[in-house]
């Protein structure tokens, strides 16, 4: 079975390119050129050079004594939190902004949820001298305010998205609208493995540097040549896609995708697209997302702004249906507890997104010999307010119960 995109941009039934005519030529230009550009040695060299010298790759594969003891297995953290910008998102934005320059584009637009992608885009744009506008849901601007400040300091324009749930879905709508209004000179840097073909494949390829490094690191650091598990959180699914990529054709490697269950799968406040979603067309791609009977998109809920999206990328929808990846739902509470525990026990404050992957470990039945690689997609500096407020309210609850 192939998990590669087909020539029409599909993974099985998912994917494709459902964009209005105004964007057709843009998307087509991209689809026709991205493979050649990505494979061009000049591009490859420049991209790899920036990943090494600017981003600080490779990122370490770091043993986690705390988690290993807790779960009775050999657990390793792939430290994307150490990337410049603070998350894996920069792998993708550098690639896309370099590519946009190759295509002769003059301006960049992006959406952002947690702000990680927005910051990473703003950084790539500052470095590569491209003006940059980032749409961000008003709710997200509040809960990830440090990232708003970072984007502004980096010289990017941050534009609040005020429609709908005022989160990632709505920021994405607005970024698409911006692109529709500026199709010739503007390049849209999508932040995850979503959107019309070729974005899902292109973003997957840029992020696949994660699993590329793991192919060397796992045999170097563990007693196995391949991990038994690779675990990652899924918002749109870019860090998961990048972590899974080079293991897709190794059926012995179990791929675990942690989705945000919000306040609980059946609470009405969730973002777990494979559990609650069905097939449909959103943001230019056919995939699974949460929607009404009528096909109206449902508002997602997650305490983590980066997972607060009703859908997932088409590759993940396909990995779900084929059973190649196993999807796990993690609640806000489980994620927060896991994030706080890692902070206290290992001195690593994870992004709340990544904390979902940490909490997913509790749902695996691990053996002592299992080698588990978990993608720590980002650092939690952007989430300090949320962590502190959560701890405070937990303590208050605890008190009032007593």
């Amino acid at each position, binding site marked *: 079975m192939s998990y590669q995109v087909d020539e029409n941009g599909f993974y099985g039934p998912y994917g494709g390119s459902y964009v209005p005519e105004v964007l057709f030529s843009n998307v087509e230009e991209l689809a026709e050129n991205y493979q050649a550009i990505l494979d061009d040695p000049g591009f490859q060299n420049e991209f790899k050079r920036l990943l090494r010298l600017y981003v600080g790759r490779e990122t370490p594969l770091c043993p986690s004594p705390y988690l290993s003891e807790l779960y009775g297995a050999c657990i390793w953290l792939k430290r994307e939190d150490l990337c410049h910008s603070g998350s894996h998102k920069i792998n993708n934005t550098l690639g896309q902004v370099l590519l946009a320059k190759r295509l002769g584009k003059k301006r960049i637009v992006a959406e952002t949820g947690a702000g990680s992608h927005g910051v990473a885009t703003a950084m790539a744009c500052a470095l590569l001298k491209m003006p940059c506008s980032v749409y961000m849901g008003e709710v997200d601007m509040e809960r990830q305010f440090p990232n708003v400040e970072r984007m502004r300091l980096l010289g990017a324009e941050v534009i609040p998205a005020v429609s709908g749930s005022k989160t990632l879905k709505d920021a994405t709508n607005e970024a698409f609208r911006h692109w529709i209004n500026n199709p*010739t000179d503007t390049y849209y840097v999508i932040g995850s493995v979503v959107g019309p073909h070729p974005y899902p494949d292109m973003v997957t390829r840029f992020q696949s540097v994660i699993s590329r490094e793991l192919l060397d690191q796992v045999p170097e650091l563990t007693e196995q040549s391949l991990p038994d598990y690779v675990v990652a959180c899924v918002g749109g699914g870019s860090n998961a896609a990048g972590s899974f990529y080079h293991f897709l054709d190794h059926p012995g490697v179990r791929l675990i995708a942690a989705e945000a269950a919000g306040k609980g799968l059946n609470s009405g406040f969730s973002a777990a697209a494979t559990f609650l979603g069905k097939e449909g067309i959103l943001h230019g791609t056919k995939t699974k997302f949460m929607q009404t009977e009528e096909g109206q998109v449902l508002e997602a809920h997650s305490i983590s702004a980066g997972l607060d999206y009703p859908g997932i990328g088409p590759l993940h929808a396909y990995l779900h249906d084929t059973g190649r990846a196993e999807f796990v739902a993690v609640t806000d509470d489980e994620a927060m507890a896991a994030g706080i525990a890692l902070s206290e026990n290992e001195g690593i404050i994870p992004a709340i997104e990544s904390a979902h992957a940490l909490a997913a470990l509790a749902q695996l039945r691990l053996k002592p010999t299992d080698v588990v690689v978990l993608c720590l997609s980002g650092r939690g500096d952007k989430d300090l307010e949320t962590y502190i407020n959560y701890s405070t309210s937990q303590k208050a609850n605890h008190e009032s119960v007593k």
Partner: protein
Amino acid sequence: MSLLNENRLSKMFSSPGKKRSIYLTAGYPKLHDTVPLLEILQNSGIDFVEIGIPFSDSIMDGPVILNSHQIALGNGMTMDVLFDQLAAVRAHISIPIVLMGSMNPVYQYGFDRFCKQCEKVGVDGLLLPDLPVIEFKKHYSDFYRENNIAPVFMISPQTSSARLAEIDGLTESFLYAVSSSSTTGASSKMEDSQAYFEQLQIQNFRNPVVIGFNIKTREDIKFVSQYADGVIVGSAFIQALEGGFDPDKITGFIEGLKD
């Protein structure tokens, strides 16, 4: 080479004169305003209408139409309600009706079932801006043909000439040319698009060309009509409905667009 039986749209376009069309959002401003609105439009001499199926996340639309979608959804507009309303309309409304909307609600309804319903209630054309031509050809064109629904596609200043030819070939009824590359209700000036309009004019399309997006005033209509077979007014009309549906005001608005 029309695959369609005689259809209100093609009949209308085969009559002489520039056509004028209005876009309205189904279920806006109130759930049951759609039918009386259609009556006024027909009585005011509008040649055909486009009815927008509201969608929570329509990326083609600017704030005015987006807002109308939100309100219509809040009013309880659904596909079934819309078809019920339209079924009642054809008794006294004869102008052609084009449905327009995002793919997903149609996809969830079932494309085949949707087209069957369209035929039943007398819908003449269907425009789904995010339905790609390649998907149309592969999976959906039969449903249109079998149910006598005219496929309508958009063309834009970005569309290549090869693609223009392909779209023209697939289209039955009219080509929907956006006045500029934008979402609906943008503030672009028609004069700025003159070069593009002139280009459209010299293409030898099978289908008539109707220009839409950002056309607001009588002057806009006059200017654009020089280059096309018809014009569509959308956001400006929705804006005229914003205070609530007042038949006199709407009649006045339509009159105001006339030369």
